[in-house]
């Protein structure tokens, strides 16, 4: 593959979705475009950004609501982190990053925003003084911790706020104690969760009343979802989702990275985990038993009548609706497709919500998708592009021995020597 081609493909960013913790609003990011639909008002929220360079100039790579719902954070390839107030949808704070941003997280009490850059450094921003009513402030970020030169794919706070978890492309998950004074760095590592045999793409917590500190789940390029005890780093269970759900024929298929886990999301308080895989039209539902510490495939929910490979999942902690989006930054007009699944809470089968039954209805779809009519083929191409981009970005390039030898031989300093001898 040509260098240029590889670079171009890795520029492609998947569409993202985030849901307000009490489902007051839903946000979708496609490329540099951030769209928010306010479900309470029943209309699109108009974002106000008074920064010197307003809005994102390049693909957004991460969006997230704070657990209290007061903040929305967006960040990405334009090396800015923008913090929005969900009260008036004003950008209350813009933070510049030295490198492209790959993940964001907001501390549970909403006082710190953390973001990770592509060189593996996690930064922390103290939000003191950032208020919806006050004029825009420019904040500086302080380094918190670092994975040595590895792209961090996901950041997460534990439900009790004790730990900050970072996952990277070197198969690692690091559990760090979130200190009382984060501005002087997070030095104490609680554990490393090691077991994935490819990049880790997503992490999430699953917890209930009996287990308030929660267990960690992670998905990765090795097509597995794993369950961990974050305090010890112990691997509790491994679920080969693609094979177990009957999506992939065998482990060999999984090895081809055809079924890398793209995203996972715990639904409601407790036991269910929705998993999105590359090439899978729909989601896999896993049941997590917190006391037995196991993960089992509960169900595969496929989306009938439409080719839909979700690129991102989102849910709010209270409503039991799983939101999904598919799309890619390279599509003209930044169109995306949004779907939802409901019915996790009652003794009925979860089902895909029809477009006219979706909360917010047509208006929401029009806002978030950028268009009501969507071309299915475009999204299949999009899913394929996202897959290639993810592989290019996160999988180490393997060169054959001959290839490497050839390169060594053609090294400039060697050339001279061969000519002389």
């Amino acid at each position, binding site marked *: 593959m040509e260098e240029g081609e590889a670079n171009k493909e890795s520029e492609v960013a998947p569409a993202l979705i985030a849901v307000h913790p009490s489902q007051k609003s839903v946000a979708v990011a496609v490329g540099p475009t951030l769209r928010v639909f306010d479900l309470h008002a029943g209309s699109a929220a108009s974002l106000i950004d008074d920064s010197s360079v307003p809005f994102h100039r390049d693909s957004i790579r991460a969006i997230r609501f704070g657990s209290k719902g007061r903040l929305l954070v967006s960040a990405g390839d334009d090396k800015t982190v923008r913090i929005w107030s969900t009260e008036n949808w004003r950008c209350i704070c813009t933070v510049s990053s030295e490198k492209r941003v790959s993940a964001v997280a907001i501390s549970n009490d909403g006082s710190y925003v953390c973001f990770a850059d592509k060189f593996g450094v996690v930064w922390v921003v103290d939000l003191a003084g950032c208020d919806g009513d006050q004029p825009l402030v420019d904040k500086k970020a302080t380094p918190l911790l670092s994975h040595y*030169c590895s792209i961090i794919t996901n950041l997460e706070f534990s439900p009790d706020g004790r730990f900050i978890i970072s996952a990277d492309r070197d198969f690692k998950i690091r559990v760090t104690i979130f*200190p009382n004074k984060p501005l*002087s760095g997070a030095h104490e*590592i609680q554990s490393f969760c090691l*077991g994935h045999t490819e990049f880790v793409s997503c992490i999430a917590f699953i917890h209930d009343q009996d287990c308030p500190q929660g267990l960690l789940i992670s998905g990765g390029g090795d097509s597995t979802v794993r369950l961990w005890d974050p305090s010890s*780093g112990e691997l509790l269970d491994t679920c080969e989702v693609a094979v177990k759900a009957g999506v992939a024929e065998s482990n060999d298929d999984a090895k081809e990275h055809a079924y890398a886990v793209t995203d996972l999301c715990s639904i409601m308080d407790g036991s269910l985990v929705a998993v999105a895989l590359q090439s899978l039209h729909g989601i896999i539902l896993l049941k997590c038993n917190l006391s037995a510490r196991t993960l089992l495939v509960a169900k595969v929910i496929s989306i009938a009548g439409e080719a839909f490979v979700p690129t991102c999942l989102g849910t709010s902690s209270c409503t039991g609706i799983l939101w999904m989006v598919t799309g890619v930054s390279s599509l003209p007009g930044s169109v995306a497709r949004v779907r939802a699944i409901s019915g996790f809470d009652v003794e009925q089968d979860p089902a895909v919500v029809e477009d006219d039954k979706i909360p917010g209805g047509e208006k929401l779809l029009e806002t978030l998708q950028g268009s009501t009519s969507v071309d299915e083929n475009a999204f299949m191409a999009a899913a394929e592009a996202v897959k290639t981009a993810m592989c290019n970005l996160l999988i180490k390039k393997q060169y054959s021995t001959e290839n490497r030898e050839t390169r060594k031989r053609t090294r400039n300093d060697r050339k001279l020597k061969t000519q002389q001898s």
Partner: protein
Amino acid sequence: MPGNEVNSTLSKSTGLPRKRFYRARAHSNPLSDSHFPVPISPSHVDYSLHYPEYFPPSDQANNPKKIQFADIGCGFGGLLISLSTLFPETLMIGMELRDKVTEYVKERVLALRAANPGQYHNVSVVRTNSMKYIPNYFEKAQLTKMFFLFPDPHFKEKNHRRRVISPHLLDEYAYALEVGGIIYTITDVEELGDWMKSCLENHPMFEALTEEELEGDPCVKLLGTATEEGQKVARNGGQTYRAVYRRTALSDQTPQT
């Protein structure tokens, strides 16, 4: 032929590998993607391969012994060889990024084991990027000593993040070291010496050893004399700068107000 070739890399008189067959560049980029195998987790490290005397293949996983010393960037292994006889009951490993140099140390250890029955069975070497894969080799608080002898100085400011002692990497070393464990650093580059010292000084989980403690520590004496790099510096009459620090428990445990 291949058999002959292998033998000819060993010295006829001492049976040790000859360095000229293991020439390698002095520097290696720690940031480049690596293609050597890495254990998935510390429990996947094959001790029977490294220390066959302690871990005979017949009774796997019965010996609770773990590696306690790590020589990061061990080079040609001079320090390890000295430590091996000084601490004959302690398992120790050298970590080196350069392939050929690792091969040399491997051969050297095998030759020493053959020449000195019963000795050098506690020392081994692995080719790896220790800046990335320390957590894959060592559990939390597993190590009692870590050595960083004459590391690559990486003078350019742009390349400072390649230095093996850096504020963020110290977090990982603190994780691998037990409380009370000791980190030894030495260099002949003043600028790097200052850098390593200030990194350790400013880290909340390390404290400097006192003069008396340095005096009483047999490892400290080896820092400047045991390694090939150290001998070279001494030969040329160069100055060395060392920083030896102890891993402490984090004091910042005041509850949030």
